[in-house]
C-alpha cells in the first residue's frame, strides 16, 4: 500500500516536472535565430541590416547589464522597419527592456510623423511582445508572420 502510494507520488512529480521547468522563465529561446527567421520570412520594404549588440543597447537606451543576448536589425533609415529580439538577464530586466522598446516606438513616431508620414502606419501597430526573459519588437507593414514565428519560439 505504502509502496503504491510512493510510486504514485513519484509519477506525479515526473508529470509536473516539465511544468515546473517552464514556470518563471518560459522555454529558452534563441533570440538570434528568432530575429534571423523573422527577417527572412517577414516582408520588409527596406534593406535590413544587423547591428552590433552594443549599438542596439545604445539605440534602445538600455543598461548593457540587462541584456544577456540581442539581435537587432535596422532598416537604412528610409523606413521605420526594425526587428529587435532581446534575451534579458532576468524578468525584471525584461520589463525594463520592454519599456525601452515601447519608448523607442514613441521616439520613432515623433521622428517620422513629419519626416515620412507613411511610416506612421507601421509605427501605430508594432508587434511588441514580452515572454519571461524575452522581448521582441517588430515594426513592419504586416507583423502576422513575425507573431506566428515568435509564438513558436516562446511557447
Amino acid at each position, binding site marked *: 500500500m505504502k509502496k503504491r502510494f*510512493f510510486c504514485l*507520488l*513519484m509519477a506525479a*512529480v*515526473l508529470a509536473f*516536472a516539465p511544468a*515546473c*521547468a*517552464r514556470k518563471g522563465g518560459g*522555454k*529558452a*529561446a*534563441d533570440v538570434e*535565430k*528568432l530575429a*534571423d*527567421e523573422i*527577417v*527572412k520570412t517577414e*516582408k*520588409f*520594404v*527596406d*534593406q*535590413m*541590416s*544587423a*547591428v*552590433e*549588440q552594443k*549599438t542596439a543597447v545604445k*539605440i534602445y*537606451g538600455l543598461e548593457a547589464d540587462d541584456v544577456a543576448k540581442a539581435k537587432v*536589425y535596422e532598416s*537604412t*533609415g*528610409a*523606413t521605420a522597419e526594425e526587428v529587435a529580439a532581446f534575451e534579458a538577464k532576468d524578468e525584471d530586466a525584461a520589463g525594463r527592456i520592454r519599456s525601452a522598446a*515601447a519608448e523607442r516606438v514613441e521616439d520613432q*513616431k*515623433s*521622428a517620422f*510623423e*513629419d*519626416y*515620412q*508620414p507613411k511610416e*506612421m502606419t507601421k509605427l*501605430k501597430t*508594432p*508587434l*511588441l*511582445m*514580452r*515572454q519571461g526573459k524575452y522581448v521582441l519588437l517588430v515594426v513592419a507593414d504586416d507583423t502576422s508572420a513575425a*507573431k506566428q514565428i*515568435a509564438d*513558436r*519560439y516562446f*511557447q
Partner: protein
Amino acid sequence: MKNGRKRLRLFLRRAAVCLCGAAVLCLAAEGIYWFAGRIVPGGGAGVSSAVSARSPSSAALSAAPSSSEPVPVSSEEAPPPSAPPSSAPSEKPPSSAPEKTAGTRWFDDAVLIGDSRTEGLENYDGLGDATYYAVKGLMVDTVYTKAAVKVSGKKLTVMQALQRKNFGKVYIMLGVNELGWSSFDTFLKDYGKVVDDVKKYQPGARVYLQSILPVSAKKSASTTIYTNEKIVHANQAIRRLAQEKKVKYLAVDSALRDASGALPEGASTDGVHLNAEYCKKWCEYLIAHTDP
C-alpha cells in the same frame, strides 16, 4: 504509541526523499528545455501567453511641408517593395564593421552631427566609440530647436547637447534637407552660424564639414528639389564656407558616387539612405582622411 512515532518518522523521511527527487527532476527538466531550445528553437507547441501590445497612436499626422519651407528628404516616395536586391535582408554580421584600430580610435572623442543618413552611419557603427547627434530631417536651423538628442535620458537640441560634453573632433553633415529652401543664401548664413557656435561650444575641437552625399540618378530625376546638380552646387558653397571659417572640408561624396556623379542604385532602397555596404565606404573615407 512508539509504533505511531516510528511510522511518522518513516513517512517524513520518505517525503523528504520525494521532495529532493522532485527538485532534481525539476532542474533536469529545465536543463532539457534549455537544451531543446538551443537545438530546435522552433519546436514545441501550446498556447502562447505572450503579451502583445498594439499601441494606438496619439500622434497626429501633420501636413507635408510646402516647398518654401525646409523639406524632409525622401518624404516624396517610399522604396518599392519589389526590388529584390534592396529588400533582401543583409545579414551583415556585426564583425563586418571595422575593428577598433588606430584609425577608428581617432573617433573615440568625435561627435558626428547630421540627419537620417548620419543615423544610418551610427547603426553601422564603424567609427570606434564615436558619439552621434543624428536626427531625422535635421537642418542648420533645427540644430537649435529640435529636441531629439537623448543625453542622460533627457531630450536636448544638438546645440544644447554640444554644451554638455567636450569633444576632440566635430564632424558635420547638413544640407540635403535644406535643398528645398527658397533662399540658398539663408542656408549658407545659417550654416555659417552653426560652425561659429560649434567652435564656440567646442573651442578645443577640430571641426570638419562633410559634403552632402549624392542621391541616386533615379531619385535625382524624380524630383526638382533633391537633384545631384543642386547637391554639387551646395557642396561647392560648403567647401567655400569651410575655407572661410577655417575648418576642414571632407569631400565624402567622392567616395560614394559613380562615374555619373550619382549614388549607385544598389547603394540604397530609396536613392537617399545608404545601406550597410555604403556606410562602410563612408567610414573608410573618414578613417582615411584623419589628420596626423
